[in-house]
Each structure stands twice: as structure tokens, then as C-alpha cells.
């Protein structure tokens, strides 16, 4: 098992965000976590990579429980991960080439020419060849996400996490990001975990969908099963139907 989460709990003050989350993901699987905004999806993703510490529960990455690790121990585990942030989170003082080759350069084990070659290769994969010298401020939102994706996969991680990969993009840019995610899974055979509330994207990029509802995994099904579900909670979410608002509430 690549990722195994057991009885994971996370609270912020009195607010309980995750209340006993259990799931597992096998090597090479493409999974999407869906759920309402503010429901704890991004928190769950950050817990998986150790950016946040849980209040209780276990997170096993290839059998290694990372829940009790300190920051320096986590650095070793994080080498297995790549992560695409919602805002891309590019280092704004570094060029595209320096951003993408950051980890390889910092490790100091790869020759400069080899880093340059691999950066060029992965930029070509995301359709941004020739942008090496550009600064993040010169890129559009879609381009920034592509660079973020290139940075997340250039060192061949085993698991890639995507935090709202298509949020804030126009439909065409969102579609191209979806295609890239599929290409990355196929090219590198990585385990992919995405968090989104974009159902079109979730259907395209995943083989399994986990629905987070009220701090727990409410559904664990294939995309087709989720879309055909008659469960009122799933049906309302998938089809974007809000709870009816009474006249009193409107007043």
C-alpha cells in the first residue's frame, strides 16, 4: 500500500475539521478527494505530506508512519512527494528554470548540464519549452500551474499531490491541466492524489473518488458510480444542487 490513513483527526481550536478519516491508496492509483469548500480537503492533502501535524491517527507512506515525525525526518519522506499548490506557489525571486530545478540543484548530486536537460525535458512535457529564463511574474495563471507541475515531477517522485489544480483557470486552461495530469500519471507511473470540487476534472483525472463529508470519508467509489449515485448528499454535490432556502431565511 502506498498511502494508508487510519482514524485521522484534525481540529483548529473548537473547529473539528477531520473526525476519523480512513482510506488507503495503492501504488500507481489516481485518486481524487472531493467535498464542499472548507470541508478539510486541502488540510487532508497537507497532512499527507506532513505540512500539518494531526491531532490523532496514523498516516503510513509505504508502511512508514509519518504522524509523529519531526520536520527533519519528514524532509526525507517528502522526497517521495511532488506537490502542485492551488496558487502554484512558485518562488517569485527565481526564474522558471531555477524553480523547476530547485530540488535537484539543492541536493547537489546532479551536474548542472544534467539539471538543465531535465528541466528542459519536463518543461517540454508541460508545453512550456523556451520559458526557462522567464520570471513567475511574467507568466499567466495557467502557465504558473504548468511550471508548478513541472517542478513537482522533475525529480521523479512516487506520489504527486494536486491541490485544486484547475481552480481559477478558464475552461480551456483547466482542460489542458487535466490532460497534463493524465500525461504525468501515464509517463511516470506515479500515484496521484488530487483535491478538487471541479467534478468534470475529478471524472477525467481519477480512477477512484473519495468524498469527504462532515470530517469523514462518506463515499469511496469509481467516478461512474459517484456520478450515477442516488445518495442525496452525493447527488446534490455532483450536480451542484444547494439546500433549498426557505422564505424565512431569505427575509
Amino acid at each position, binding site marked *: 500500500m502506498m498511502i494508508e490513513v487510519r482514524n485521522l483527526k484534525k481540529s483548529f481550536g473548537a473547529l473539528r475539521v477531520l473526525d476519523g478519516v480512513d482510506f488507503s491508496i495503492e501504488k500507481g492509483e489516481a485518486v481524487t478527494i472531493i467535498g464542499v469548500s472548507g470541508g478539510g480537503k486541502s488540510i487532508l492533502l*497537507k497532512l499527507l*505530506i506532513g*505540512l500539518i501535524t494531526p491531532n490523532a491517527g496514523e498516516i503510513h507512506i509505504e508502511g512508514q508512519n509519518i504522524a509523529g515525525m519531526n*520536520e*527533519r525526518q*519528514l*524532509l*526525507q519522506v*517528502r*522526497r517521495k*512527494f*511532488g*506537490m502542485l*499548490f*492551488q*496558487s502554484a*506557489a*512558485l*518562488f*517569485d525571486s527565481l526564474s522558471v528554470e531555477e524553480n523547476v530545478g*530547485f*530540488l535537484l540543484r*539543492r*541536493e547537489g548530486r546532479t551536474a548542472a548540464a544534467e539539471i538543465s536537460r531535465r528541466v528542459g525535458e519536463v518543461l517540454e512535457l508541460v508545453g512550456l519549452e523556451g520559458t526557462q529564463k522567464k520570471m513567475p511574474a511574467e507568466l499567466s495563471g495557467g502557465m504558473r500551474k504548468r511550471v508548478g507541475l513541472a*517542478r*513537482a515531477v522533475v525529480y521523479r517522485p512516487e506520489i504527486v499531490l494536486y491541490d485544486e489544480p484547475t481552480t481559477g483557470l478558464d475552461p480551456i486552461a483547466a482542460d489542458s491541466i487535466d490532460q497534463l495530469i493524465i500525461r504525468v500519471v501515464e509517463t511516470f507511473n506515479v500515484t496521484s492524489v488530487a483535491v478538487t470540487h471541479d467534478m468534470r476534472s475529478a471524472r477525467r483525472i481519477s480512477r477512484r473518488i473519495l468524498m469527504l463529508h462532515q470530517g469523514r470519508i462518506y463515499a469511496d467509489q469509481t467516478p461512474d458510480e459517484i456520478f450515477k449515485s442516488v445518495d442525496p448528499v452525493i447527488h446534490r454535490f455532483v450536480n451542484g444542487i444547494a439546500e433549498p432556502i426557505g422564505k424565512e431565511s431569505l427575509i
Partner: protein
Amino acid sequence: MTSLAKQLARDWFGGLGRGTLLCREIVVSLVRVKPVWRDVLYQMYFIGVKSQTVVIITGMFTGMVLCAQTYFQFHRVKMDSLTLAVVSVSMGSELGPVLTGLMVAGRVGAAIAAQIGTMRVTEQIDALRTLAAHPVDYLVVPRFLGLFLTMPLLTVESIALGIAAAYVVASFLLGVNQADAWHQMMRHTDDIDMLTGVIKTFVFGGVIAVVACYKGLSCPQGAEGVGHATTEAVVYSSITILISNFFLTMILNTLLR
């Protein structure tokens, strides 16, 4: 009122604890991780070269005004020749280190808190961590070493310029006998006065780095959060410099004399 006092005490002790943990992490990083000297050199350039204007103006004008004030008082009792000696001892052991520390806290401390705070609110710190880079290794240690190594140089420059400016004012503006003033200055200025000043600057450099980096790393979300962190970095590092200066003076004079 009691709950507010409790909250303030909890925040203060919480901040102190987290600051101490950051210091421990800096020591761990210095011992275990080889610093990237290119980053340290860049920080030394940013801190040293870019602070020249404020350091030169502060040093020169402090020396000049101290010289003038001392002369006006000493002239009444016919002790003009001791003017430069007062300037030299004051600049070397107290005014040089403290004023340079305050100016660097204002310029560099604010910049560090704003840079790291902006990185935090735009998830760049999280991105660093996902790329297996410890924020203390990558962001804090180069700034800490940069300040630690550059502060003494800036302070010595400030002291030297202050004394030189005072010499010019005393000789050419106030008519003090040059040879006499120089002789008295050399006679009354101990090596220990200068050594005290230089030792203090290492502490002040470390204080500015730790406070500014801590404020940046714990910056609240949003543009207001970055502004808040920047202001607090300058205020807290300045206050810490002023308070620690008194204790350093007492301790160093006891130990060195």
C-alpha cells in the same frame, strides 16, 4: 481584564518559546547542515552594501553632534582637548554598536520579515518544505550568518567615520588643538572599549536575524499580516537591542576589566 492579561501572558510566553525553538533549530542547522555560502554572501551584500547610506550618515552625524555637545560643555572648564576622547569612547563602546544595530534593525530586519512573511502567505514556505528544503536551512541560516558577520564590519565603519567626522568638526570648526585632542583620545581610549563594542555587534546581529525571521515565519495571513509582522520585527528587535545593551555593558565590563 483578567482573561485579557492571561491571553497576553500566554501570547508572550508562547512567542518566547517559539523563538527559543527557532534558536535551537538554527544551532542544529549550523552544526549538521553545511551552509550554502553563495546565499550567505548574497545576504552579506544585501545587508552590508545596501546599508552603506544609513550607516555612513548615522555614524558621521552622531560623531559630529557628540563632538559639538561635548565641546560646548568641556570648553567652559577648559577641557577642550578631551573632546575627541569622549567621542571615541562613547562611539566605540555604546553609540556605534547601538545606533548601527537600530538602523540595521529598521532597514534589514523589516526587509527580512517582509520577504519571509510574503513567502509564508503565498505558500512558498510550504512549497520549500515539499521540496525537501528546511526553511531554517534555506532562509534563516544565510540571513543569520549574513547579519552575524556583517554587523561588526558595519559597526566598525560607523565608529571610524564618527570619530573621523568628530575630528574634522573639532579641528576645523571648533578650533581644538589637533595634536592635543588626538593624543588625549589615544590616551583615554582602551582596547577594551572597542572590544566591548565589537562583541555587542555579534549579539545585535543575531538578535535582528532571529526576531525578523521568527516574525516572518509566524506571519498571519494576508497583506495586513505581512505589515504587522514587519512592524513587530523592527519594534521587537530594537527593544531587544536596547535592553540587551545594558546587560552586555555590565557583563562585558565585569569580565574584561
